[in-house]
Structure formats: C-alpha cells, structure tokens
C-alpha cells in the first residue's frame, strides 16, 4: 500500500533521515517509534510532502507521490497533529468540513458525514457551532481525528496524535481508537515516542534512531528478537508490561491446561485474541478463589478454564522458548 524507498532528508550537513526504506500493508497500523530528533516526524511529513525529501521515492498504491500535485495528494491523506492544529476561527462543523469543501462536496453530503462521524467519536452535536477554544483537549483531539477522517481517505498519517493528552484521557482515547471501525479500513502511519502506545496500537513498528531504522518488525519481534542492544535498552524499562500487552492467549494456548471444575459454570468467556494485560484486569474482578477464567479458541471452538497460576507458568515457559529460539 505504502512503499518508501531509500528516502533521505538532509538539513545542511545534518542527515535528519538517512536512506530508509519500509513498506506498510493495506489496513495495517504502522508505528514510527523513537526519541525526539530521530527523524520519525520528518519521515512522516515526507509522505504527504509537507517536507520535500533530498532523495528517495514514496509510492502510495503504486503511484509515485512526487508525480502528483501536493494539494491533490494531501486531500487524499488524513493528517492528525499533536496539537490538533484546529482553526481557531472556524466552528467545529467548519473545521470538520475543510477537506470536503476543498473537494467541493455539496452541503448535504458534508452534513450527513459530519453527523455520522460525531456519533462514532461519541461527540455531542451541540459542539458543532462551538469554537475549538471552548472544548477540552480530548474533545479537540477527537475533532482533529474527525477532520482527518471526514473524506474517508485510505491513508492516515498521525504525528504524536495523543502526545498532548493526560494519561487518563489518553488511555480512554486509545480504547476508542482501537474500537473505531473507520480506522480498521485505513492504512495508518503513526509517529510516537511512547513505547506503550506503540505496542498497544501498532501492527508493526519501525524503531528509528539518528535518521535510520534500527528494527522493523511486529511488537513481539521487537520484544523477543531485538536486533541489537539499542532495541533491547529502548524497551527494557517497560519490558514486562510490554510483554503482557503483546502476548495473547492464542500464543500460549498450547501451554495451557484445562482446569475445569465441575459446577463452576461457564461464567465470563474470553476470546483467545485477548492480551495478557487485559486478562489480568479480568482476574481482578473475579471473586472466586482460586480465580479462574473461561477462554475460547476461535478456530476450533475449544474451551479452557484457566487459573492465574497456570496462566503465569505458561507465560514463563513461552518466554524461555522465545529467548531460546
């Protein structure tokens, strides 16, 4: 879907982005991860030509983006900024309608689409005539997202979209973000410096440093098969938590034994794509001792009832296997 080839950007003698290549598949959520100054934002902005590269190629749907006019290219790419970049002199409705108006949609179509999006993003219609300054940070960020999604672009670029939000707001937006069906149909490139966010939202992650990609892989590849010490160190601090968030029941299925006890009944049933972190959250609300949860393999509809202790020993076995491999 998006193909980046040997892309470089030099500012004077500084190589902000140094000859990088990667691919993003359709409907994939790709994360550019790294510390500030690593070149991730520059890379992102070259994809909608906010920054013109020094050399290299970018293809979207096999089309060379440098052969299109930048305005037309950008109208087909959603863009979400860290500080939302909403126009302070436009109402919420006008802000959302910016791209449709550039695309010359008629008023009715814009209205219908705006209402549809507000509903999906859990925003009240009362806000439509408000100005961005009158909204909270989280609401502004949702409007920013609505603005990027309104014309239903196939590609969405997000520059630290949740970076300016407090932790509570951020985690609630993360949940919505994952649940939003609009986004499942998009090919997304997201820039972040937040490792947890990257692991939570990314299908695959490019970890960048000094303008180069250090490792390009799935979250579990980064975690369990780090390319070098840089990757290991980068993830170390939040290691265990990341693993819990990365590993699903599915990966441990073969290590889990069924501990069903007659008479406990079906109770809560978990989908086997659930990550361990979420499973732990569920254990907290189970009152029975020892606590057990029901899990289901979606492929063969096999059910297992597992206690916390069993789950943890399966996790450690899995870890050893991964590191041994």
């Amino acid at each position: 879907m998006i193909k980046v080839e040997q892309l470089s950007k030099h500012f004077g003698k500084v190589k902000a982005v140094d000859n990088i290549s990667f691919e993003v598949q359709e409907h994939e959520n790709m994360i550019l991860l790294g510390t500030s100054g690593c070149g991730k934002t520059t890379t992102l902005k070259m994809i909608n030509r906010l920054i013109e590269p020094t050399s290299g190629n970018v293809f979207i749907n096999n089309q060379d983006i440098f052969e299109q006019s930048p305005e037309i290219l950008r109208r087909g790419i959603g863009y979400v900024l860290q500080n939302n970049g909403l126009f302070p002199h436009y109402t919420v409705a006008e802000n959302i309608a910016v791209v449709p108006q550039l695309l010359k949609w008629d008023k009715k179509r814009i209205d219908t689409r705006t209402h549809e999006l507000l509903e999906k993003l859990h925003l009240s219609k009362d806000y439509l005539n408000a100005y961005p300054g009158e909204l909270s940070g989280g609401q502004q960020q949702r409007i920013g997202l609505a603005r990027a999604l309104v014309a239903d672009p196939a590609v969405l670029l997000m520059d630290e979209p949740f970076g300016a939000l407090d932790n509570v707001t951020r985690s609630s937006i993360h949940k919505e973000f994952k649940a939003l069906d609009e986004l499942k149909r998009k090919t997304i490139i997201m820039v972040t410096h937040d490792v947890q966010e990257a692991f939570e939202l990314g299908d695959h992650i490019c970890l960048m440093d000094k303008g180069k990609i250090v490792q390009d892989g799935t979250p579990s590849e980064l975690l369990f098969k780090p390319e070098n010490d840089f990757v290991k160190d980068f993830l170390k601090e939040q290691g265990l938590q990341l693993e819990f968030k990365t590993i699903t029941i599915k990966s441990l299925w073969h290590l889990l034994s069924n501990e069903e006890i007659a008479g406990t009944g079906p109770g809560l049933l978990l989908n086997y794509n659930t990550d361990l972190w979420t499973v732990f959250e569920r254990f907290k609300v189970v009152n029975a001792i020892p606590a057990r949860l029901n899990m289901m393999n979606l492929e063969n509809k096999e059910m297992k009832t597992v206690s916390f202790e069993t789950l943890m020993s399966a996790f450690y076995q899995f870890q050893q296997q991964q590191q041994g491999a």
Partner: protein
Amino acid sequence: MNEQQQSLWEFMQQQSDKLLEQTIQHIGLTFISLFIAVLIGLPLGILISRKLKLSGPVLGIAGILQTIPSIALLGFMIPLLGIGAKPAITALLLYALLPIIRNTYTGITGVDAAVKEAAVAMGMSKWQVLFKVELPLAMPVIFAGIRTATVITVGVATLASFIAAGGLGEFIFGGISLNNTNMILAGAIPAALLAILFDFLLARLQKLNLKKLKTATAILPLLLILFSSFYFLPSAYGSKLKAGFTPEFMGRHDGNLGLQSKYGLKINTVVISDAVMYKAAYEKQLDVISGYSTDGRLKAYGLVVLNDDKGIFPPYYAAPIIKENSLKKFAGLEKILNLLANKINDSVMTALNYKTDYLHQSPEKVAKAFLVAQHLWKPAQNGNGEVVKIGSKIFGEQYILANMYSMLIKGYSNYGVATKTGLGGTKICFDALTNDGIDFYPEYTGTGLLAILQPSLKTVDSLTGNKDATYDYVQQQFQAKYGIKWLKPIGFNNAYALMMRKKQAKDLNIKTISDLKRYLESR
C-alpha cells in the same frame, strides 16, 4: 472662561460652512491615503512574511520614511507632484505605511505554526492558506496597525494645508499666524475628535469576536472607500489664474479679506504654506502668491511684486520688541539693539535674504558679513554675564536678524546669548515673550497692529499706509497693554505683497492688483 467658550462656539457657527468643508476634506484626505496605504502595505506585509530576507530592508525603508519631518517630505513632493491633493496624499500614505506593513508581517508570522501546517496538510493551496487561515487569524493585529496608521494620518493631515490640499490645518495654522485662539481651536478640536472617533470605531472593529470578524473584514474596505469619496479637490471658481495664499493671509483684513472687499478680486485660491509657496509659483503650480516684499526668494525665483494701488497692505516696519523688565535687567541692551536702527533698507534686506534662501549661505555668515561691512562687528567678549534670550520666527530674515543681534550683544557686552529661532508664528513668539520664554524678538508694525492688538477696523483704516502713525500707535498700545517696548525700526518694510512670475506678469501686462482684477474679469 465661559466667555471664551461662547465666542469659540460663535466662531464655529459663523464659520460652519468652512468648518464642515475642512472637516470633510480632512476625513477624505485621511481615508484616501489610508486606503492606498492599505492597498500597498498589506501586500508588502504579506510578501515579506513569505520572503523573510526582504523583511529587514522593507521595514527599514518604511521606518526611515516615518522619520522624515513631515514638512520636508511635503517639500520634496512639490517638484515631483506639484501642490494640492497628490503630494499630500502621497506623503500621508508614506507615513501610514510602516504600521500597516509591520503589523501585517507580525500578524501573519505570529499565526500558530501547527494551524498553518494543518491547513497545508489538509490540501489547501498557498492562496487558500493565506485567505482562509493566515489573514483571518492575523486580522486583529492588522487592524491594530491600521488603527495606528489612522491616528497618525489624522494628525499629519493637518499639515496638508501647507501645500494647498485643504483640511483642518487651514484653521489651525491660520489661527497660529493670526493669533486667533478660536480659529486654532476650531481646527484642533475637530481634528482631535476625529482621531479619537476613528480610533474608537476601529477599536470596536478590532475587538469583535472571531465570528463577526468576517463581516468586519468586509466592512473595512467599504468604510475606507466611503470616507475616501469625501475628498474632493478644493473646488475651482474657474478663474484663469490660480492663487496660493498662506493661512495667515487668508484670514487678515490686510490680506485676502481686503483684496475681496477693497479690490473685489475673485481668484481661484488655495491655502498653502509660506515654506513651499514661492517654489510652487516658480514651478508654475501657482500664478499669484501672497509673499513678503523683502523675501529673498522673490529674487531667487524671478517673481515680481504687484503694485498695491489701493493701499490695503499696511506698512510692516521691523523693530525688536522687548519687555521693559528685560531692559531694566540688562543695562545697556537697548543701545546695543538700536545699533541696527535704520541700517537695513528694503533692497539690502532682500539681498541678504537672497543670500540665505537662494545661495544657501548660513544666516550666521550673512549676518557677520553685513556687520563687518557696516563696521559694526566686534569680536565676542565671551563674557559670563546673564543670558539674553533672543527669539525669531521661522523664516530666513528673522534668522539673519537674530544672528546679528546675537553677535552685537556678544561683541558689545559681557552678556551671554541664547537663541530660540524658528518659533512657528506670531502667536508663539509673542506668547514666548510675555511668558519670559524669550527676552526680545524682531516684530513688524503691521503684525503688531493687526495680529496682536486687533483694533477696530476704523482704527486700522485710519492708520493704513502711514508708517509713522502705525509705529507710534503700536508703540503706545504695547507699552500700555503689555509693558513691551518697540525699539527703533531697523529700516526695511517687509509688507505683504501679491507677486507673480516676472515673465507671466509681463506677458499679461499686469503691474498692479487692479490690473490683475481687470485681467481676471476680462473674457
């Protein structure tokens, strides 16, 4: 105080036609200039916000324009654009440029970078970003610039009357010259009110919230155009020749009023400053001007004085006037000042004026050369006695006289000297004298009579034309009323005179003011 206000009110009522005309001219002049300044300044401001390298030079040049004294700028304009509306508007718009350019630049560069980036990333073109995002968001700052420019322009527009472009300056400067407080206030109060009013209106416009801003942005150009249309060139009577008279001359019985009542002269007249009048006549912008008979520029610009065959211009013999207190304080000063008595006749004064005005010699040099030639000059004693403060009006002749007196005092006494030259008019000089700002200055008998004493018309008529009677009258009256003494006359008579270019006067066979009238009335 009450009486004063009432008489001001009476004056304004009496002159309401003129006041209204001047106010409308003033508003029109302000807004035409402002409108053009916005047309130039806004795009320039936008340009330098795009090409930051240009911002230094452009803002620098606009800043330098701002520092040129207004009168000098108006003076530069005459050879290029003549007199009247064109140079006035040009000068005014040059003054209005800086705040408009600077605020446009500051406003646009101050727009939040994230908002600009968002606009570009949404797929807006450069022009769309400018018109939909940058300009609307910069508008409050741009409005503030236009507001500053408006207030500056309302103020500077008073000077437009110097070059025959009309406006409230006609009353203000006429009033200063004529020592007529009501006339000054009749010009100054409306001018101040206009500045306050426009500032207030624009402030309201500026503080409108974002939603109404769109309407406001549309209203502003409309307002500018509407007010601009107020201005029309001072209307022509359709006479063959064009006259330029100083504001002072316009309001005096021995000036334009006398020309109208005694001669019945009807000529297309504009009001213009003495500083640029002669040059405008030379440049054929004007045909008849109200000059001074000893002015050096008469010689320099090839002008000729028309004979005052009905004797409406009273004698203007120059003599130093000094407070009696000062004469007591500075013993021997009277004798020193009288050294010049009867030493300078009309032609000598014209020649001296010619040296400063046309040959551009310094007044100091001219003064010294004259004193040396007259064997009056003595080297300065550099005494450390008390300081005598000499005043002078703001034209060449007075500068020369002030310098002569300064050298004489230094040479013949041990008093120190301080000169306060360039006091802008009779009223300012005379007020300075009565308030001890200066000790003496050279004044003219006619001015003393008509501008300061302002006796009844009957008295004026009885004195007109008689040099000695006028001198005796002012001498006696000044002593009685102000305790100010007229010393001996210097000798020359710097009377008002109508003048024309020599060649034109000869071609049209005009030698007297009556000839001029006859020519104007012929078909």
